[in-house]
């Protein structure tokens, strides 16, 4: 099986480009995605291949462009919208929460809404409070949406293809710190089913449940801990909605220790949902220690690098949490 090493940004570009070549109802719209190539360079070269009719620069009007995607999806197309920073979903939240998520259900289950909203999430770039948030918990709280957070180029490409093929609104939360990371992807076509977690590292002593950028940090922590003889399993959720509960429960039954890690603020974070789900499940009876949640401090993302780094979980904090769980 041949494969190529590409970046996370390239993987996203490839997924969209390949689907656009196959299906002329797939198009992408967003701010500065044409000649500029998107704020994070994801769509570089695409307008040259697909023309301005299918890679469309829009006004800075998030409500209009997300609404347009919903309307086009209801009427037979498969739009992809790029919202430059995930923080900006809040200015078009009516379209996401009251329209996209509810149209199918409130209209008696009839309309199909095959569209993907791609957006760049996460901190670590010095962009401060309004350009660095991880807002996935807000989205997971809205029935009718699917929420995907890829951590590797392989996952990004395969999950995005599945998202494009899905007949529901899918929010695809790209990790802005991962755009330049590299990984191998198969040269042939593939997709990754939504709703399947991936065990990124197998282990027997403790389970770290995480997603997005924190997968890489957790894997680094697991590597450090292995030198201490602690064998950690790292599970990448990949999709938060639908959530692969079974894989999580089985892992906890095996390792009996659970540490949940995310970059979003801890209070009301998605980790709270995972923790609650596990304690409500049979996994509860297998736990040898309380579940530990690691999230960002409950503050807006600060600007100064020393503050920004301190606010979110890092390798050392994850190692400490695992040691504490096992102690």
């Amino acid at each position, binding site marked *: 099986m041949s494969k190529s090493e590409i970046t996370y940004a390239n993987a996203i570009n490839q997924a969209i480009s390949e689907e656009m070549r196959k299906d002329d*109802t797939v198009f992408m719209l967003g701010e500065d995605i044409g000649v500029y190539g998107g704020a994070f360079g994801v769509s570089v070269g695409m307008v040259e291949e697909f023309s301005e009719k299918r890679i469309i620069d*829009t*006004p800075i*009007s998030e*409500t*209009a*462009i*997300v*609404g*347009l*995607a*919903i*309307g*086009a*999806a*209801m*009427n*037979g*197309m498969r*739009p992809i919208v790029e919202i430059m920073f995930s923080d900006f979903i809040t200015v078009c939240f*009516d*379209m996401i929460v*009251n*329209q996209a998520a509810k*149209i*199918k*259900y*409130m*209209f*008696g*289950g*009839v*309309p*199909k*809404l*095959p569209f993907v909203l791609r957006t760049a999430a996460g901190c670590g770039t010095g962009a401060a409070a309004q350009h660095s948030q991880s807002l996935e918990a807000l989205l997971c709280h809205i*029935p*009718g949406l*699917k929420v995907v957070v890829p951590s590797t180029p392989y996952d990004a490409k395969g999950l995005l293809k599945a998202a494009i093929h899905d*007949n*529901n609104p899918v929010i695809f939360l790209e990790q802005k710190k991962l755009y330049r990371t590299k990984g191998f992807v198969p040269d042939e076509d593939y997709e990754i089913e939504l709703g399947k977690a991936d065990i990124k590292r197998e282990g027997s002593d403790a389970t770290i449940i995480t997603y997005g950028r924190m997968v890489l940090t957790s894997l680094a922590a697991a590597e450090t801990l292995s030198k201490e003889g602690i064998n950690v399993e790292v599970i990448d959720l990949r999709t938060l909605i639908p959530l692969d509960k079974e894989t999580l429960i089985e892992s906890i039954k095996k390792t009996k220790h659970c540490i949940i890690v995310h970059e979003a603020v801890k209070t009301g974070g998605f980790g709270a949902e995972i923790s609650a789900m596990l304690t409500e499940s049979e996994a509860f009876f297998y736990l040898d220690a309380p579940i530990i949640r690691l999230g960002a401090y409950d503050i807006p993302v600060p600007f100064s690098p020393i503050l920004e780094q301190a606010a979110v979980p890092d390798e050392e904090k994850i190692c400490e949490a695992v040691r504490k769980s096992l102690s």
Partner: protein
Amino acid sequence: MDIKENKELVLGLYKKMLLCRKFEENVQYYFSLGMIHGTTHLSIGEEGTAAGTCSALEETDQIFVTHRGHSDVICKGIDINKMMAEIFAKETGICHGKGGSMHIADLEKGIMGANGIVGGGIPLSLGNAFANKHFKNNKVTVCFFGDGATNEGAFHESMNLASVWNLPIIFVCVNNTYGMSTHISKVMKITDIEKRGEAYGIPSVSVDGNDCLKVYETVKKAREYVASGKGPILVVENTYRISGHSKSDGNLYRTKDEINEWKERCPIRFLKSKIIESKVATKEDLKLLDDEASQIIDDAVEFALKSPLPNVADIYNGLYSE
């Protein structure tokens, strides 16, 4: 319009308005008896805008309507039995009891949905029109909204985008001069809403919404313009909501005299007098139409009343597509 030469059309418009009025009067009645649950937003007095606009469209054209959209969807040809059943919260409802009065939709009839969020349907209409342009199917999208919605950001973003992308949409502003209880003069410096279209380079016209024939003629021309690929158009249909905003309305913000003055200008009564004057039909002919409309609505109520409630086991149905 020469009424005599357009007898069928004119009587059709008259009957559509009657259907709307009788539908909503029944909703109001059963609501008052506690047999309809939730809330309803009636458009009594505004039927001229619904009948005139929808009758000027092709069958395959598509409409987006508001929370006050009963009349619009009736005039677009919805199954009235299923619509009544939806408002009665029944399984046989057009949305299986999941939507109710504010969320009526029938995609096959080109009814792309009523929206409970003021201005919420306007951005969606852009995409609908974008898709029609892509498929080159010559369908025109009509987006209804009220005067109140033109103060929403969604309206301004959408007007701008529709204009700059030349989308085939007729924006129909049903200006009833009140956003719930607040008069337009309290919330807009310039109350000529067509100027808001002009500001975005969109040709804009305004028409007496209580003159159904004028509405029809105006929208017919608007449709020709939009279908020719010239881009969107804004039609402001000036009218008045005789009914209250919703069930909670005590009409404290307006006088009885004002309401009575507009009752005199009722679009149904107005068209009736024109029909009689021009001798297109007699009072007796119109009485027959009235009886036919009453029968259709009575049948719809009966259908709704006899229909079963939704099955709780189906509560998750329709959330996600396969």
